[in-house]
Every structure is written in structure tokens, then in C-alpha cells.
């Protein structure tokens, strides 16, 4: 290729696949406008193919990551660095996007805007994949915005009044967060005098009291900006509204793919701080929003009666859980956070897919689901148990233990204590719903629900089955996930 930057197409494939998909969809739509029923299936195929390539990368070693876009100087600086952890997160983003596509496919059969939907979704997935591997401020910022902005359009596409409100809320907070991120990036550059996320530069900046002040402010702003995408309290206000306003495919994308890419972005920042910055400073900056999210998200989820809103508040609490291990600012903490977010994404995908399949808008609508529809009921039950961290959802328990063991090892006790309280409260949140699933179905609502059930399609069922298989597999063999990230 060019002499300036080396390019390895195979390494870039996880990001190139959705880009290729975008091109194909747009070209196809230009050739035969309005008859693009094939757009969503095509996008799905492309996403799954990209995920398979990414999974190949997750079998590698953290010491020898896949690298490309390397610059001649400074020596060895590569703009794209994907170790096993990054590759796993990329695969999770792509698969979660594919799941969202499947739900959108079933939800809007016959709609004319499928090409637009597919394009937006693929673009956002590209951003999510790229941000995980980006190691320089520029591509990191661009990729992050690429992951975010199309979602606003996706929410708005539904066309209802509440969807417009949700999209507006999303847009406003998104802009605010973008401003914060840009400011943070600028301060980071000022403090470290380095346009990449490198530990050496951070360590040098930390040694100088003047630059340290700037660096702390930079980290604060970056955490705040990412807090919006992660739905950390107090940057969470948009979440329940947007979840409830969008259709379930978009909600699933927001809840799973967006969250994974946001965590991937956060991991890029924190991994530069590991070993370079002393723990307590970062622990407070990350710990405050984490604890607030854990407690507020769980407590409010306890009062929700709409499954989607319940899952929205549960997302806020789970975002807190993802950040809990990062407060240790250690390598084990990074691994625990990645494992947690992947598990959370899988469980949430299954839960939302089942909600889409049943069409229930209240918890009572899923009453006795385990007897009426054992596949959906069992999958939802397992997903909720994983989120609660109870066997047989063993993987939920494993990642919770991992998440708590990092701050415990680092001595960040207040965060660990809040985690314990959140575990207990979380049991109430999820078991409340599980109890409804287990209850005897009311004879009166039987036929009506059955009629509603016929609306869902095959793709949703595939998502439910595949997600459940993943949950069962990693529950039976947790080292598949936890070991793959080490």
C-alpha cells in the first residue's frame, strides 16, 4: 500500500464488513429504489461475517495484538490495535447489531425505509467496532460519534410524537456529551502532549503537578462524556424515555450494541491510565457515577411496570456494574468490565427479544409465560437470572464476582459495599419479574395473548434461541468468556 501508513485489510475486516454493507445497500437502493426488502437480511449477513472475523482475533494473545494503520514515526505507534479483549467486544457489538436488525426486520415488515434503517445501523456498528480498536484521540472521537449519531435518527425514524421527543432528548444530550468529549480530548492532548492513548505519556504528565491538574480535568470530562453513552447517573435521564419511545429493535441496539461500544471506548481511556496514574483519583471519578447508577437504577427499576422501562432502569444499574471493576484501575478490572458488559449485552438482547416476541407492555402481560410459551418464558427467565446473578444463570454470578473482586483487591471498599447492596436489591428487581413468569396464567387472557403472539416472526425466534444458547454455553463453561478475555 502506501509508504506512509501500513494497512492490513484482514485486521480491519470487522470494521470494513459493515462499511461494505453500507455501500452495497446504498448502491442497491439507488439501482432499484423502494424495493429493498433484501437490505436488512444483507446487513445481517455482513454483520455476522464481521463478527466471525472478530472472534478469530479474540483467540489471540494480549501481548501480541492485531495491529495495523501503523505510522513510521513515532516508532511502533499503531492507530488500530485489537487484542483479544478488543476483538471480543467488537464481535459483541456486531452480533448485538445483528440481533437488533432481526427485531427491526420483524417489527417493520413491509415498511419502505428498510434501506435507511440498514444504513444507519451499519454505520453505527462500524463506529462501535472502530472505537474499540482506536488508539489515537482523533479516530477515537470520530468513531465514537459515528457510533452515536445514527442512533438518534433510528429513534426518530419511528415517526411517532413520543419518538420525536425521545430523539430530541437523545440529540441534545448527545451534543452536550460530544462537546464534553472534544473538550476532554483537547485537555488530554494538552496535558500529555501526545495524540494517542499511551501509558508512558500519562505517567509523564502525572509526574508534573501542573499537567496533572489538566489531566484530571481531562479524565473528568471524558468520563462525563462517555457517561452519557453508558447511561451512568447523572447522565442517564434520556435512557428510559428513548427506550420506551423507540421501537424494540432500536431499543435493543441502544441497550446492547451502543453500550458495548461505549464501554469499549471507556476501556481505551482507562487502559492508558492503568499503571500510570495512581488509583484513588480515577477511583473517585469513576466510583461516584458507578455507585449512583447502581443504587438509583436498581431502586427505580423496582417500581417499574413496563418491561421496557424496567429494562431501561436495569441498564442504568448494569452500567454502574460495568464501571465498578474499573475503579480498581487494574488489568484485572479491565477484563472484568469487558466480561461484564458482554454478559449484560447477551442477557439484555434475549430479554428484549422475548418482550418483542410477546408484545407485552406490562409485566402482567408476561404472566405465566413459562407455561404458555416455554421457549420465550425459559429464555426470559434465564436472562433475568443472569442479570440478577443467580444460578442457573451462572455466568451472571461469575462476572459479578469478578467485578467485585477487582475493587476489593484494590481496597476500594465503598464501591464494593455499594455493589453488595445493589446485588441484594437487584434480586428483588429481577425475581419480581421471574415470579410473574412462573405464575399460573390467567385463563381469561389466554386467547388474546395467543393472538398477539402471532405477530412476531422467525428472526426474533432465532435471536431468542441463539442468545439463550450463548447464555447456557457460557453459564456451563464460564472460561469460554472469562478465559477468552485474559
Amino acid at each position, binding site marked *: 500500500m502506501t509508504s506512509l501508513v501500513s494497512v492490513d485489510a484482514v485486521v480491519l475486516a470487522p470494521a470494513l464488513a459493515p462499511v461494505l454493507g453500507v455501500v452495497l445497500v446504498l448502491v442497491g437502493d439507488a439501482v432499484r429504489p423502494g424495493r429493498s426488502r433484501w437490505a436488512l437480511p444483507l446487513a445481517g449477513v455482513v454483520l455476522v461475517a464481521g463478527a466471525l472475523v472478530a472472534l478469530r482475533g479474540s483467540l489471540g494473545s494480549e501481548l501480541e495484538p492485531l495491529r495495523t494503520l501503523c505510522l513510521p514515526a513515532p516508532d511502533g505507534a499503531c492507530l488500530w490495535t485489537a487484542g483479544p479483549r478488543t476483538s471480543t467486544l467488537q464481535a459483541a457489538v456486531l452480533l448485538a447489531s445483528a440481533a437488533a436488525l432481526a427485531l427491526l426486520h420483524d417489527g417493520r415488515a413491509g415498511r419502505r425505509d428498510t434501506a435507511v434503517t440498514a444504513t444507519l445501523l451499519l454505520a453505527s456498528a462500524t463506529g462501535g467496532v472502530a472505537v474499540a480498536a482506536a488508539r489515537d484521540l482523533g479516530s477515537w472521537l470520530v468513531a465514537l460519534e459515528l457510533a452515536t449519531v445514527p442512533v438518534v435518527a433510528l429513534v426518530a425514524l419511528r415517526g411517532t410524537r413520543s419518538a420525536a421527543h425521545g430523539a430530541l432528548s437523545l440529540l441534545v*444530550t448527545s451534543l452536550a456529551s460530544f462537546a464534553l468529549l472534544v473538550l476532554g480530548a483537547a485537555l488530554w492532548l494538552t496535558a500529555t502532549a501526545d495524540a494517542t492513548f499511551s501509558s508512558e505519556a500519562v505517567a509523564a504528565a502525572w509526574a508534573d503537578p501542573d499537567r496533572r*491538574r489538566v489531566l484530571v480535568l481531562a479524565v473528568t470530562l471524558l468520563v*462525563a462524556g462517555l457517561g452519557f453513552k453508558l447511561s451512568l447517573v447523572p447522565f442517564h435521564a434520556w435512557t428510559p424515555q428513548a427506550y420506551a419511545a423507540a421501537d424494540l429493535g432500536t431499543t435493543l441496539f441502544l441497550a446492547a450494541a451502543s453500550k458495548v461500544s461505549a464501554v469499549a471506548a471507556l476501556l481505551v481511556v482507562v487502559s492508558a491510565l492503568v499503571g500510570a496514574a495512581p488509583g484513588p483519583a480515577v477511583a473517585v471519578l469513576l466510583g461516584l457515577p458507578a455507585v449512583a447508577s447502581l443504587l438509583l437504577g436498581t431502586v427505580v427499576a423496582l417500581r417499574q411496570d413496563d418491561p421496557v422501562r424496567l429494562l431501561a432502569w436495569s441498564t442504568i444499574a448494569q452500567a454502574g456494574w460495568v464501571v465498578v471493576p474499573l475503579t480498581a484501575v487494574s488489568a484485572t478490572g479491565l477484563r472484568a468490565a469487558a466480561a461484564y458488559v458482554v454478559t449484560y449485552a447477551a442477557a439484555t438482547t434475549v430479554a428484549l427479544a422475548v418482550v418483542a416476541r410477546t408484545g407485552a407492555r406490562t409485566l402482567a402481560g408476561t404472566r405465566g409465560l413459562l407455561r404458555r410459551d416455554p421457549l420465550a418464558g425459559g429464555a426470559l427467565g434465564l436472562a433475568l437470572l443472569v442479570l440478577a446473578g443467580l444460578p442457573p444463570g451462572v455466568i451472571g454470578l461469575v462476572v459479578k464476582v469478578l467485578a467485585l473482586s477487582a475493587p476489593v483487591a484494590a481496597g476500594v471498599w465503598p464501591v464494593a459495599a455499594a455493589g453488595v447492596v445493589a446485588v441484594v436489591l437487584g434480586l428483588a428487581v429481577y425475581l419480581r419479574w421471574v415470579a410473574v413468569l412462573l405464575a399460573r396464567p390467567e385463563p381469561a387472557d389466554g386467547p388474546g395473548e395467543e393472538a398477539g403472539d402471532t405477530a412476531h416472526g422467525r428472526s426474533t425466534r432465532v435471536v431468542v434461541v441463539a442468545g439463550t444458547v450463548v447464555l447456557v454455553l457460557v453459564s456451563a463453561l464460564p472460561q469460554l468468556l472469562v478465559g477468552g478475555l485474559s
Partner: protein
Amino acid sequence: MTPWLLVLPTVLAAGLGVAVRRDDRWAGALAVTGTGVTLLLALVAWISQSGTVVGHLPSLPLGDLEVPLTLATDPVRLAVAAVVALVATAVQAYSTWYLAADDRYGQFAATVSLFTAAMLLVVVSSDLVLTVVGWEVMGWCSYLLIGHWSRRPAARRAALKAFLVTRVADIGFVLGLVGLAAGARSTDLGAVVRAWDRPTACIDAAVVSGSSLGDALGACGAPDATLRAVLLVLVVIGVLGKSAQVPFQDWLADAMEGPTPASALIHAATMVAAGTVVLAGLFPLLADSPSARWVLGLAASVTMLLAAVLAFAQSDLKRMLAWSTVSQVAIMLGAVAAAPDGAGPDAGLLHLWSHALFKSLLFLAVGWAAVAAGGTAATALRGSAAAAPVLRAAFLVGFLSLAGVPLVVGGVSKEHVLATAWDGAVAGDGPGIVVLVVLVLTSAVTAAYSTRGYLVLTAHVRQRPTAGGVTPAASAVLWVLTVLVVFGGLVLLTGTFAVGEVSLLWLLLTVLVVGLGVAVALRGGFDRDPAEVLARRLTPHADRGLGVDAVYRRLVARPVVRLARVVAFLDTEVVDAYVRGTAVATRAAGWTGVRLHRGERPSAGVGLVLAAVVVLGLVGVLAWS
């Protein structure tokens, strides 16, 4: 022959018996075979074996504690095992007739087999763990057997009562044995006895050589005497419960709700006698501990006389036999308590042996008579011995033996108990004198109620009662037992039981005492029930066991229930209040959170974001600049 062979057949019979319980004939054949084989094995071993044989299982690895799981047989144990197997065989053969019409005969037979196996385990056990296993299995089986006719509320209540009372006493038994085993770091009986035994020879030598007693105790590594006394008293409490001694005596009379063969088994050779076997194993320790001996001796003495008096006044002859069992077991335990260190527990075991024979005979015969007469009340049973010639012979021999008339088996053993108590009284360091005095009084009362029983059962009546369908097996069982009761005293000639000579003086005294009792009983003439003549006013109270049931309820049940209510109140109203409080607080917090997020406007979101950023930035900059 390994001792496990004695336990195995009945265990097999119990296991297979459950499998074939639907078929009465198979169940019966299996049960009789199981106990019969055991009897044969025990007899062969008894005749052929001279010393002690130990059988091992792979020992349990339990850290510091050694659990060898050994069984041991010596002539005395084999003699007791043989009589247990004999009584069990008799009971099994008898119940093939007695319970022929019962729809749950199969379960009954299997339970009896298991019960027998448990008793045999206790008899040949040389390991405290196995003793506890046998002891507990007997407790369960007695519950099943007493409550066999579970459709009757009285049977259910009696079974539950027996279970609860013995179980409460078992707390002491288990604690005591655990303590003994912990002190010895082994559950092996020999090791436990060695560890807790007073090193008398060593101490005597040290005292003779001039050191003080305290120094001698320390130098010889003597175990803590107080602790040993406490542990032994705990074991004795368990024994008192299982053997229905004061203050646990009331369950045994109620247990008469069970089928008569089960009563014969429980009373004659198993459960109630098991305590004597266990204490005989621990005898060397008991002999060293005067306090435990006093507890046992006093409880046995009180029980002995009280139960004999209650037996005399019962209006129901089966309950009379039950109270007589309580009294006779007290005599065994009294012998163990009174025996001085040199004498050994064999007088008590000999009485156990003979009691097993004559009490099983009496129970089985009364069961037959009750079938003929249609009830067990004294008025119903009047003259029912006329139903069959074997009954007359059985009652004559059985009551003679119960009264302790010399030369029949019961008389032989009772004289040895008297002689042992006399030795204890002379030695003067235990409850020997008390046991001796009470035993003489009890002998008179026993003779009186034996006379009463015989008079009532063999009274002349116009209409001869008959019991239909008696099988030859049942009458053969009674004949065999009758013969054994007459000649069983000859067991002394085998030298199995290490008991001393009995002088002619004791024979004379016994005859005198028995004669006195008989004379008192005959005051009303031959045709009247002596209880009506002598104890008319006592009878209603005796039938209720002197109202001990109500005392149990007032002293134990009611306080326990009240305590439980208090605990439940504390749990639900105080402890749970905090739990409910957290739930309320959480829900309130959730409600507040929902209220705060009701106005979901974009501007509010942005405001929140900016405010939070300012706060976080200030915190970060101020803290780490």
C-alpha cells in the same frame, strides 16, 4: 465367626421384606427365616466360642477422632443376642397368626426385622457410633410398631408420645457418648473405657509410697472425675428414657396401643432392655463414679416400687404387664447401679435374659387370651386361660417366674440381683442399700400382682372362650417358651454369666417375701380380683399413670410452646421489622426516583449533565491538584 453375621440376616430380611410386603406369605416366611437364621448363628457361636471375637469394618477417617466401627462378641453378648433372636423369632412366628388378617402385615414384619437388627447391633457393638445407630433405629422402629394401627387416634398419639419422650432423653444419651468419645479421641468402647477408667492400682501404689491423693491423681494421669460423672449421668438419662424409668415412665403403658407381638418384642428383649446392655458395656466407668450410680440407683428404685404398685392396680391386664416391665427393667438397672466394682454387671444382664423369656411368654399368651376374650380389660379376660391348655401352662409358669419364685428362670435371676444388691450394700459406696430394701418390697408387690394376674386369667367361668384359627406355629411358640421359662435357669451351669453363688438364706428369704405377697393378694379369696379388694380407690389413678401425662404437659409442653410463641413474636415483630423496614425504604426511594424523573425534558437532561460535570471536575481538581 465375625459378629457382623449376627446383624446381617435381619437387615436383609428387613430390606427384602419391604420389597415383598404385599405378599403376606412371602413376607412372613422371610421374616421368620431372617430371625431364625440369626438365632441359629447366635446359638452356634455361643456354644462354640470361648473368648472375644472382634469384627472390623474399614474405619472412618475423621481427623483426630478414631472411629474403628468394631463389633465384638463374647459369651455374655452371645447369650443376650441369642435370647433377642429367640424372642424375635417367636414374635415373628406368632404374628403370622396374630396379624394374619391385617392389611399391613408385610410392613409390620419388615419393621420387626429391622428392630431386631438394631437391637442386635447394640448388643454386639463395640463402637459408640454403632451403638448410637442401633439406639436411634430402635427409636424409629418403636414409633412405627406402636403406631402400626395408625387409623386409631390413640395409637398415633401413643407412638408420637413414645417417640418424643425417648427422643428428649436421647439428647442426654448422645451428648454423653459424644463427650466420652471426645475425651478418649476414639469411639471404640475399649478405648473409651481405658481412657476414662480410674487408674486404681497406680493411685494406690502412689498413696502407699507416701504421696498425697491429689499428687497421685496427677501422676497417674487420672481423668477428670467430675466431667466423667456428668457424662455418665447424661448417658444414664438417655437410658432412663429408653427404658421408661422415672421420670420418663409414662410412655410405655400408652405404648400398649400397638399390636401385642410388637409389645412383646419391645418389652421383652429389645428397646427397654437396651439401656441395660449399654450400661453394662460402660460398667467399669460407672463403678468408678458414685454420683452416676446414685442417680441410676435412685431412679431405678423409685421406678421399681412405683411401677409395681401401679401394675397391681391396673384395670387392664396388658397395661399391668407393661407396668411390670417398667418395674422389672428397673430391677436390671438397679442391679447394674448397685453392683460393686468387683462384681460386674452380669446379674443385671442375667435378669435381662430371664425377663426376656418370661415376659415374651406372658405377652404372647395374653395376646391370645385377649383375642379369645375380645378385650384386654381384667373383667373381659376373666377366665380366658380356658381357651387353650397351653395358655394355662404359660400363665402358671410365666407368673411364677415374674413373681420370682425360686428355681424357675425369673426366680434364679432375681436371687442373683438380690445377692448383688447385698454385696453393694455391704461395700457401702453406692446405692446398694437403697436398691436392696426397695427390691425386697418390690418382690412382695410383684408376687401380689402376679397372683392377681393368674387368678383373674384362670378364674372359673361358665362359658369357655375360644380363639378361632390358631395356627400350630403360635401354640408351638408358647410351648417352647414355657419349657424355656421352666428350665432356663440352667443357663447358669454354662458359666456364661459371671455371678456369684447364692446361699440358701436368700432362697428362704425370697420364698418368704413371695409368700407374703401372695398371701396379701389372696385376702379376698380365690374368686375375686385382688385389685378390687385391695386397691379399688387406686385403680382410676393407676389407669391414668397417676396423671403424669398432665404433668408432662404442664412442665414441658406448655413452657416450650410459650417460649416458641415468644421467639416467633420476636422473629416476626422485631427482627422482621428491620427487614420489612428496608423493603419499605427501598420502595420509597424507588418512588422518589420515579417522581424525580417524571419530567423527562431534554433541557433537564442537559442541565443535569452540565451540573454533574462541574461537580466532578471540581472534585477531581480540588482533590488531586
